């Protein structure tokens, strides 16, 4: 299992907590928050979030990741913040590891 870099987790959570205020989401976004079930996001939201994350951590195989998610059974397509962060940590380029 991929180690989660606490700095990446904090950065992604900051981003999501800043945005979720605009979505009328009243809870606090944490590692176990699910994008679809909890935050009510749509697939394009996740795509665009991926663009923002890649701006910070360099190019990631997000298209492949999303395609893989899309192939899961409907009930398993959701993904948690921790899972996305693990994906970023696993695939970010070495030059972005200190970001």
């Amino acid at each position, binding site marked *: 299992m991929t180690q989660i870099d606490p700095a990446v987790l904090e950065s992604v959570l900051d981003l999501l907590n800043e945005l979720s205020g605009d979505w009328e989401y009243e809870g606090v976004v944490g590692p176990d928050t699910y994008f679809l079930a909890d935050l009510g996001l749509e697939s394009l939201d996740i795509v*665009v979030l991926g663009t923002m994350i890649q701006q910070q951590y360099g190019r990631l195989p997000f*298209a492949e990741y999303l395609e893989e998610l899309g192939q899961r059974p409907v009930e398993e397509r959701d993904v948690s913040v921790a899972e996305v962060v693990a994906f970023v940590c696993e695939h970010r380029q070495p030059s972005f590891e200190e970001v």
Partner: protein
Amino acid sequence: MGPTLLIGVDGATFSVLDPYMERGVMPFLRGLVERGTRAPLRSVMPPLTPPAWTSLVTGKRPGEHGVFDFFQKEEPDSVYFHFASSQDVRSETIWSLASDQGRRVISVNFPLMFPPPAVDGCVVPGGMMPWRQLRLGCHPPGLFDRLKQLPAFKPREMLDMELEVKAIEGCPDDEYAQWVESHIRREQRWGDVARHLIHEEPAELIGVMFDGVDKLQHLCWRFIDPACAPAQPSAWEQEMAERCQRYFSTLDAMIADLVALAGPDATVILASDHGFGPTRDVFHVNSWLEREGYLAWSDRSNGDADRAGTELGFAEMTRHVHAVDWTRTLAYAATASSQGINIVSRTPGTDDPLPEEVRRKLAGELSDGLRALRGPDGERPLVDEVWTREEAFSGPHAELGPDVSLILADGGTMSILPSETLVVRREEPRGHHRWEGIFIATGPGIRAGTKVDELSIVDIAPLVLHQLGLAVPDDMTGRVPIEILEEDELDRRPPRRVAAAASSHPVDRPAELDLDPDEQAEVLERLRALGYVE
């Protein structure tokens, strides 16, 4: 010199606007035409929002700026596509060029503006920007929170993707009225944001986009085009025609407001990214490829076989990655919007590159096959125009575009979904993109009451720069359309060209896949064994 106001009207066509102007539905636009110059505006291939608007703001064609569709190939040799963003625009734009030379800019609701460029001015991105992330797309930092104070600023309504999907895939009759009203409200909200920024953030270049025309014309063409109107409209059809008319009347008033705000010395350029016309045919391009032996579906795509024959697969864009059996596929269409077919870059079932001569041969075969297809009547050609990549695109990014591009004879649409029937005819006409968009301009030095021959969409960026008093970089394909300018203006301020600055958008290219002759022979042998080449 006053500001330059660029009003984008996505999908606007004179075949719709002229009747509305003549009937008094759009009196301001009529006056604008009388005071200025008008021309048909030729779009680029494909005549589609992301590449065409990018051509308009860069003065370049898709092979030169790198944007071909809503979703982009990750790399020339990849089957994965990503959501197109501003990072895919591999060129300077009017926004960056103006800002870099001391002209403040406002850009409202233009596509491919996310992540926003760091211009001097304000950016509120549009297009397929999800409303939940609009905060991230607004520039400068803090702008989103300032806009939130406006009663009209409702991101959810301004960027509602459901409206987009229904425009393409349709909706039940009892939802039409609300759908049209949503567009009126949405345009008013964008108009209010633009008005606020023009008041509070004075700029020399002001760009405002209205994209509801495209959506309405897709779904409601039969209520908009007088030629499609039924002789005896039902009460519901009459109501829908009136609602659509109200949309265009509201749009006219919003354009009038913006022009008034820009002031009497402003240059006003009103342009669309492509035109529109009626269509009924839906061509299931991947099923044709399957029938011809170029594509095999994977087991996982079986569920799609029951879908309605006129669905295009809007929600399935880029799902080809899993819908296709890559061990038996040579060509595929990834999106309905691309108007194109991609040829795989690897020999099926291997990691070996597909030799270039094989790719070219396949592109030729596909082009010939498309030209031979007949429409639903069995007589007339189904496809009006076909180009190979080399014919359609040129420039450093051409390899990111489709290998074969097509325009259907009735201006029809492609579907990427499987279907037993290759061409399905809709019961009612829909609207779809055409080459000829609109151009209207007024302002200092621009001829009044003039019609000129067709301009190119890549001429708009040079014109904008000229009106801002700036020189045109010599890497722009477009030109300043001098035929719209008064002679005095040309004497006083002839268009200037300057050497383009070194690109700040480096091309990220994979290493060339060179094969020695033995390797090429081996790959060809494998293809022969698979039956792909003779």
